C-alpha cells in the first residue's frame, strides 16, 4: 500500500512510524519533501491487509487533526 501524506508538522512521521509498527506493518520505502507550509511523505507500507486498512484509517484521522492544529 502506497500513501501520499500531507503533514503540517513534520514530527508526525514519528507517530506514523510508531503506529505502523504497532499494527504489525512496516514500511519499505519512505520519501519526504518539504513544501512552503507542509511536508509531503510518500510511504510504501507492507503488512496484513486488515492491518493496512486500519493503518490507513488511523492515519487519515491523525492527518485530519494535524490539519486542524495548523489552521
Amino acid at each position, binding site marked *: 500500500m502506497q500513501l501520499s501524506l500531507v503533514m503540517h*508538522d513534520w514530527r508526525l512521521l514519528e507517530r506514523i512510524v510508531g*503506529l505502523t509498527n504497532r499494527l504489525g506493518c512496516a514500511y519499505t520505502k519512505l520519501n519526504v519533501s518539504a513544501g512552503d507550509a507542509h511536508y509531503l511523505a510518500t510511504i510504501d507500507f507492507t503488512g496484513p491487509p486488515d492491518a493496512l486498512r486500519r493503518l490507513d484509517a488511523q492515519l*487519515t484521522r491523525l492527518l485530519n*487533526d494535524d490539519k*486542524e492544529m495548523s489552521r
Partner: protein
Amino acid sequence: MRQREPTVSEPADATGAQLVLDVLADEGVEVVFGYPGGAIMPLYDAMYDHPIEHILTRHEAGAAFAAGGYARSSGRVGVCMATSGPGATNLVTGILDAQMDSIPIVAITGQVRKELMGTDGFQEADVTSIMGPVTKRSVCVRDVMDLERALRAAFRVARGPRPGPVLVDIPNDVLKARCPKMDYFAARPMPPTCERPDAGAIDEAIALLRAAKKPVAIIGGGGRSANATHLYRELVAMLGIPHTATINGLGCAAPGDPNFLGMLGMHGWKAANQAVHAADVVLALGMRFDDRVTGKPDKFARHAQIIHADVDASEFGKIVPVKVALRGDLRQTLGQLVRRLAENPISSFSSWALDAKALGGALPTDRAPHGELSATDVLDSFFALAPDDAIVTTDVGQHQMWAAQRQRATHPRNFITSAGLGSMGFGFPAAIGAQMANRKRMVVAIVGDGGFQMSIAELATVGRYKLPVKILLIDNRRLGMVRQWQELFWEGRYSHTDLSDNPDFITIARGYGIEGERVEDAGELRDALERFLRAKGPTILHCACFPAENVWPLIPPGATADDAMENAFKESEPVPVVA
C-alpha cells in the same frame, strides 16, 4: 511554526503566561487542575492574580484525572497543567485515559528554556514525543507569537468532532516573553463542524431495520459526547427496540425503560449479551466494539447485520464487519433517523423486546458469610438510597463492574468511569473534577481499596477546598478483580493480590480533616449509608466487605455470550475462603 503578525499594534503589554490565561478564560475555562514547578513558574505567577480558579492537586496524575472528571461530567473542556519533566510525565496516564474514552482535555506543560532543550537539562523531557501516541495532537510552542493560535487550535481539536486530549508544551522563556495582546475575538475558532450522515446510508439503515425480526440497539460513549441522549431515547421508544449500552453509554437509556437490557459485555447483564448474540440486526451507535464488549469478534452478533453510526470513520470495520456505516455527528444521525421514522414508521419490536428481556434474569451474586458485608449488597443499597441526580464516579476493578451493573444514572454524564484504559486511581480525583463542574450536586466516588490508595493524597485536595465529595470505599482487602481471575483462571495462585494489611482509612481521612465511619456488619449498613448521604461536607464510608465475592456474570476473554460464567458456588456449599 510560522509566525503571525500581532493584530493589535500596542507596545508589548502581556507575557506569554498572561496570554495563556486570557485565552483559557476566553475559551470558557473557569477552573484548571494542576501542580506548579520550576519551568511553569511564569504561568503560576500570572495565575496569582488572575480570575481563573486553580485547584492544586497533590499529584499531577490527580490533576489529569480531575480534568477528565470535569469534562466527563460537564461536556466542557477540562484543563490540567504541570511543569516540565516529571510533572509532565505524571500526566501521561490521565491523558491517555481521556484519549481512550474520547474526553476533551487540554493539558499545558511548562518546558525548560529553549536553549536547554535537547541538552538533558534539569527536569527536561521530550514531552511532545512522549505525549504523541496518547493525544490527538501534542505541540511545543517555541515562539510567543504562535501561542494564541496553538492554544485556540488545541481547544478546537480537543472538542471534536471526536473529542480527545491535546497537549501544549511551552518553554519557560516563551511563557516569560512579552507580546502584544491579541485580538481574541478575531482569533476565536469556529466550533467543530457537525457532519451529517449520507442520506443514502440512512435509507439503507432504515431498510435493514424495517426487514429485521430481532434488532438490538447499542449505545456507546458517543451518545454522551454528542449530547444525543434525548434523541436516543426518542428513537428506541419509537421502535420499541430492545437496547443495551457499553459502559460509557450507561445513562443514555431513559430511567425505567422496560426495553433496556442493562450493560453489555464481559460483566454485562445476561439478557443484553444474549439478545445481541441472537440479533439479526445490530444498530451500534457511537461505540467502538471494544474487546470487553465483543469478546471474540468473529462470534460477536454473528447472525446480525451491523449498522454502525460514528463520528470517526476509522472505527468502521476496525473490529467487526459493518453492513451500513453512518458517518457523522451522532445527534445529526439520530435526528435524521427519528425524522424519517416518524414520517414512515416501522412496526414496533416490542414483542421481541419482551422475549429479549426474558433471555436473562437477575444478576447472579455470591453469598456473604452470615452477618458480613457483601459489596453487592452495599451497592444495591447505595443506588436505592442515592438521589436520582447524583453523579457517581468509580475507580477500576470489581467495584466498578458491580456499580456499572447496578447504576441508575439518569444521564450519561452522571456515571463516570475509566472505561477504555481502566486506570486505577481515577475514581477519586475524577470526583473532584466532577464536583468542581457541578458544585451543587451530590458527587460520590465509589472506590476500591487498591485504587483509592493510588490517589489517596487527593484527600488533601478535598480537605483544602472543602469539596463535599463523598467516598464510598469498598474494601475487600484484596486487588479483587485480579484475585478473581487468579481464582478462576490461574488455579487459585493468589500472587500479590492480598492487601490485608490495609491502613486505617478513617484515621487517614481524619488526618486531612475529613470525617467518616467504618461499617462491617450487614445489619448496620442502611443506617450508615443514610448518614453518609446526609453528611454535608466531604465524608468517607469505609465498607469492610468479605473478600471472596466475585463479579458475575463473566464472559471469559475471547469467548462468547454462550460461554458466560455465573456464580460458581451453590447455596449449599460453604463460602470460599480466600488465601
